[in-house]
């Protein structure tokens, strides 16, 4: 593996990581005044992890899943139930009683233990996506068919989570929970907050490194091969469906991991994160950031969410909806590589063109001034 710093994309990532890592310190020093903003950055970290997972299957392998919200929620519900049971002392929760249950249902019993929770939080999405992926990919369902089926799957999951409200609390979901380290709000709990924040950051760094390694080894090359010529890959002797299942599972696990971290920041999880529109929102992050580069997923997730955070309030709400719709359309139409593609390929190409066509120095100057004025 190439050293991290020598690669410009990895260098970018390290810088982003630094910026994120510094933010709680800056908050403590008073440079950043709003703790809720830094807390939101924590959520962005979680979103980036989910986005990396999506990018691995979409950008690299060419499988567009419109149902990653399901896995995100599975992870979040697992962690949420653990935290909830911690708070209630391991006995039946209010919503279960309201739903007519008299004792803690068997499926939630393991979530009394942290160890089991972590195992299940990763294993449940892995196994579920593994089974689904195995069936779907074995039968050579691909392209948009897969997207549509994944959409339907999410919808199924959403319906089930709502229909089984004694177990899942319907559309209210799991609420009123504290993070793994206890309450993270208020200056008294700054230590707890840092704990959760840096935990998420370390996980992000780990996931990034793992994904970069994965995409650079033979496995990653094979993913690209599958994207570009699935049949060819079969005839080269690879069992494509098992590779697809593996990467789909891995990406589901990343989504679950993101969900599990997210609930620590958010304090609640509802099935609305499982809806199709939320799942497509995740795809938007990757598309805007730049599919096919791990960095793109991270940049897209953080950028879009920050924009939304700052722009979707008050009078800006109407505008924001037009803006996000428009940005997305334009990105897909003209900047297929997203922001990363724009910065690393399209802009340099334009610069080169400018340099090559504008031989006369006078015109170059005029152009430069024009840019400055703009």
């Amino acid at each position, binding site marked *: 593996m190439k050293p991290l710093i020598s690669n*410009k994309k990895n*260098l*970018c990532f390290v*810088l*982003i990581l630094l*910026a994120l890592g510094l*933010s709680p310190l800056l908050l403590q020093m008073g440079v*950043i*005044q*709003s*703790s*809720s*903003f830094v*807390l*939101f950055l924590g959520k962005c970290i979680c979103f980036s992890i989910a986005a990396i997972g999506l990018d691995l299957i979409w950008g690299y392998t060419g499988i567009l899943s419109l149902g990653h919200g399901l896995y995100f929620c599975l992870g979040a519900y697992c962690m949420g139930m653990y935290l909830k049971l911690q708070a209630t002392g391991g*006995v*039946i929760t*209010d919503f279960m*009683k*309201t*739903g007519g249950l008299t004792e803690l249902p068997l499926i939630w019993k393991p979530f009394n233990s942290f160890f089991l929770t972590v195992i299940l939080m990763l294993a449940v999405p892995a196994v579920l996506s593994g089974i689904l992926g195995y069936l779907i990919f074995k039968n050579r369902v691909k392209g948009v068919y897969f997207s549509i089926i994944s959409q339907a799957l999410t919808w199924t999951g959403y319906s089930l989570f*709502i*229909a089984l*409200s004694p177990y899942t*609390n*319907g*559309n*209210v*979901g799991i*609420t*009123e*929970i504290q993070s793994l380290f206890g309450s993270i*709000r*208020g200056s008294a709990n700054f230590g707890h907050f840092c704990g959760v924040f840096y935990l998420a950051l370390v996980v992000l760094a780990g996931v990034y490194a793992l994904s970069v390694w994965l995409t650079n080894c033979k496995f990653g090359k094979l993913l690209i091969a599958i994207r570009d010529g699935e049949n060819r890959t079969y005839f080269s002797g690879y069992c494509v469906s098992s590779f697809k299942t593996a990467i789909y599972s891995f990406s589901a696990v990343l989504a679950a991991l993101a969900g599990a971290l997210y609930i620590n920041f*958010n*304090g*609640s*999880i*509802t099935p*609305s*994160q499982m809806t199709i529109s*939320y799942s497509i929102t995740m795809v938007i992050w990757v598309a805007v950031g730049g599919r096919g580069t791990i960095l793109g997923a991270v*940049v897209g997730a*953080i*950028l879009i969410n*920050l*924009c939304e*955070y*700052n722009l*979707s*309030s*008050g*009078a800006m*709400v*109407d505008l*924001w*909806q037009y803006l996000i719709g428009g940005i997305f359309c334009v990105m897909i139409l003209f900047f297929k590589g997203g922001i990363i593609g724009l*910065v*690393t390929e399209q802009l*340099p190409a334009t610069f080169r063109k400018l340099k090559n066509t504008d031989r006369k120095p006078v015109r170059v100057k005029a152009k430069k001034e024009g840019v400055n004025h703009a």
Partner: protein
Amino acid sequence: MKVKCIIPAILAFAMCLSLISCGSGAKETTSSGGETVTVGLLHSLTGSMAISEEAVRDAEVLAINEINAAGGVNGAQIVYVEEDGASEPSTFATKAEKLIDENKVKTVFGCWTSSSRKAVKSIFEEYGNLLWYPVQYEGMESSSNIVYTGAAPNQQIVPAIEYLVNQGYTKFFLMGSDYVFPRTANEIINAQLADAGAEVVGEEYADMNQTDFSSIIAKIEASGCDVIVNTLNGTGNVSFFKQIAEKNYTAEDYMTMSFSIAEEEVTTIGADILKGHMVSWNYYETTDTAANEAFVTAYKEAYGENRVTSDPVEAAYDAVYLWKAACEVAGSFEPEDVIAAMESTEISYEAPEGTITIDGESHHCYKKVRIGVVNDGGLIDEIYATPDAVKPDPYLTSYGWAAEVQPLS
């Protein structure tokens, strides 16, 4: 080559920094002069809940403007910061936190769905801020950091069922959207009806976005019920009533008692379809008080002649005035002082629905219960009202039959 590597890196870094600074530079709401107090409005302006929440938000803005015009609260003008919850509870949580921590609001008026309220509840508790929740709900909750200006179940559901039983209805069909309010409400109703000796002949839940109700209507037909207790929410109501009407059924064939149909819903469903059906609220546009007359006029003046007022709209409007009253008693805007004032003194306000008083213990309001019938003009006529304001009892502790449905703690 080296330069080429560094440019994008710097660009990305700069982008991140600029966004961070963009966020951290908390928007200082500078006013032209005099003292101000900042409050937050947190409703869904986009997504599926925007249908209901926009009117509530409008009522809050109206109240704020009225108060400002009349000199403000404790001499300070109210400045409001608005956030969009986007019909997603997690967005509500994020935005609630942003309002409290970044915009430093003194209180927030907001939420509609129970899921959004529950998602923000712990945030308000942890920050010690105050949320005014304007919608009737399923009860079984009380938080020192939330004031519920809508009805608790004993101020809407329980009296309505009592009324139906007294009217001689014996076979009840419970129908609702599949979420927490209908499920809890129906549990309460089941317990209450069992106690009253009436029969529940069917219980059905529809998807929140369900558009086809033919199956449920078929089940209603098969059940032989004489009244439908309807807790559908939002668009489901429109589909249900349009589709029951197309089978030639009127209120005479199947009487319904609805808990989520107010004047606004009547206009979107159509009075021709809904006329004769019963609803239960604390307030109607037709409620006969002087305060209401002024309120209705002001609301229509501000938002158009075709807009109607409804119970949630009125409750949201009341919330702002109740907060004002509490601030004045406390002599402060700080949430803890306001909460303390509410808990120690009886805060009341001459609302359009009549005098409402905050119950310091439960943070709910004393409210009159009114059963109404939809008339030809799309408004609701009161046919029965409790003589006095009913004391809020979110946990239904004063009802013997309710032991089953009360939560654990």
